């Protein structure tokens, strides 16, 4: 089913929207959650939560890119669940490794600006990503958005792991410099 039709089902409050979404994007969202959550049961629950959140968001929202919209919901839900698991000492996995790498970009301290303007930060990151080459951007997002293992990123890009590792390291350094220059309290 076309994405526009699926979105319209949500707007029409047609309960067929959820099975249509699950059929088309269940695997994709399952993958996004699965990269963050180690438990198959957690993944399944997270994906089901995604459909519920999508139902609540549409209307008023009308996503132009439905898969990205759903993936963002899933990632957010999965990461929140991961943080809860970690609090119970059950976190870990690939996302922990990705976070450790991202730690190079930040101080690890609570921001002096207690309420960091997340919108401004995201806008700056968007600008930063726009300036990267397509390959650098894809690798960065596969690693730090999708929490893909480096080996998997390398396979997707057809590059050796060492090359991807080096590229990611350079990109992280660039991101830190970029955000620092723009006055973000990292």
């Amino acid at each position, binding site marked *: 089913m076309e994405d526009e039709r699926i979105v319209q089902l949500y707007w029409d409050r047609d309960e067929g929207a959820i099975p249509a979404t699950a059929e088309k994007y269940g695997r994709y969202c399952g993958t996004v959650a*699965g990269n963050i959550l180690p438990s198959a049961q957690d993944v399944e629950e997270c994906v089901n939560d995604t459909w519920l959140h999508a139902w609540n968001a549409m209307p008023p929202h009308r996503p132009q890119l439905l898969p990205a919209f759903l993936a963002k919901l899933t990632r957010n839900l999965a990461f929140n669940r991961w943080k809860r698991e970690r609090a119970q000492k059950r976190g870990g996995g690939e996302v922990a490794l990705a976070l450790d790498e991202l730690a190079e970009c930040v101080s690890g301290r609570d921001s002096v600006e207690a309420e960091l303007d997340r919108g401004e930060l995201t806008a700056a990151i968007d600008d930063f990503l726009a300036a990267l080459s397509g390959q650098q951007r894809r690798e960065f997002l596969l690693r730090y958005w999708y929490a893909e293992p480096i080996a998997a990123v390398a396979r997707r890009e057809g590059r050796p792991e060492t090359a991807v590792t080096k590229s990611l390291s350079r990109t992280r350094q660039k991101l830190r410099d970029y955000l620092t220059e723009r006055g973000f309290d990292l």
Partner: protein
Amino acid sequence: MKKEDLFESLNDVKDEYVSEAGKTAPAKKQSHWLRWGAAAACVAVAVFAGTRIGGPAAVTPTPPSVESGEVAVSAQPVESVKPTTPAAESPKPTQTAPVVEPSAPPATVNGLPVLTVADFSGGMGFEGLLAYDPDELADSCPWKGETLETMPVYKNQAPGDTAGFVEGDRDAMEAQVREIAARLGVTGELTITDDATTPEEIAKGATPQGPYYVRGTAEGVEITAYADQSIQVEFDPAVTLPEGLRFDESDADALREVGEYLKEEYAELLDMAEPVVTLQGGDYSFRGDRSGLDLYLYDGAGDLPEQIAGHDLKSAHLCEDENKLYLIWLDAYDLSEKVGDYPILTAEEATDLLCQGNYITTVPAEMPGREKIVRTELMYRTERTAEYFMPYYRFLVEVDDPAATNDGAVALGLKTYGAYYVPAVRGEYLTGMPVWNGDFNI
């Protein structure tokens, strides 16, 4: 700021970037896919958005792919599938045509099994090349227009699932790693690892999953056997070439010299009866940067059909880093099961089908016309989802449709050459040709 804050802030980056990365399909060699920037990403996403992803809501963690195998298929050249819609007779990328269900095919024709045409897996974007002139694009295809009656078709011994994801046989992959190590003359102990789900992970509730790769590491070398039938040999440190040889990706002659040296130096590893040096690449980015030439060796033994198969199914990609050899990427396709020698179309017949709209492509534009064809190749495709490795005619066609071109590249004077495919095996031996549903969803 804490690392978790940064991770969460990434959640809201532009949808286009999320899609762009998520569209990146697992790929061994995918250097010739045009991936436009943000503006055109919407178009490329739209190309794939009208088709399916791997089935119902399975939630097994596998690499993300927004859609798996999405292609625009215009009508079909298969005789067993009768076009019944106006779109099938006169394909128009913006019209919607119902899918034509193929009738049940016979199991064999003239003693040869009927072949199922595979979906084309793709990443973000579409298959195309940018150049000012098609002659700038390296032409490595052994076929130069000869008329061939038949071509061999091979059974794919390790087909992936609908998303192209392959789960490997650990023991077999470890044996491959050890064999490659022996061919390289590695004498030290190999440390073997893999990426299968561990018992600890399973105990925590993770879904058991076999390995996608098995890796052997010894001093100076890392050998990885992948479930999709390729093997990566990475040298650390990279191998220094003899004085006088230049691994220069911008110099075809220098690269060929390097290739001639390496084919002797690594003859045992390559295990090719007649290694042939060849170059690929030479295209441009949409910013106008020319990509380097890629150095390949392929097995050119046998008659022409076998040479074509060797070019696409038994080759090695030799990669450089600072004038040193740091990686050899080997095809390891199991070609032990030859299905048969299939009668094929002539290039003229294939061209006629192409011009009638009977083609498969990922290019988001209708085939613009016979006069726009700049190159024809006869080659094998190796989709992970394919049941067979079978020959196709690949047409490079100059396209100027705004949906398939990039404004920046156009401003530089670069032309876009999109790839359109026609199965070379004659239609009576084919079935399951995916039929484009007519929707680019733009």
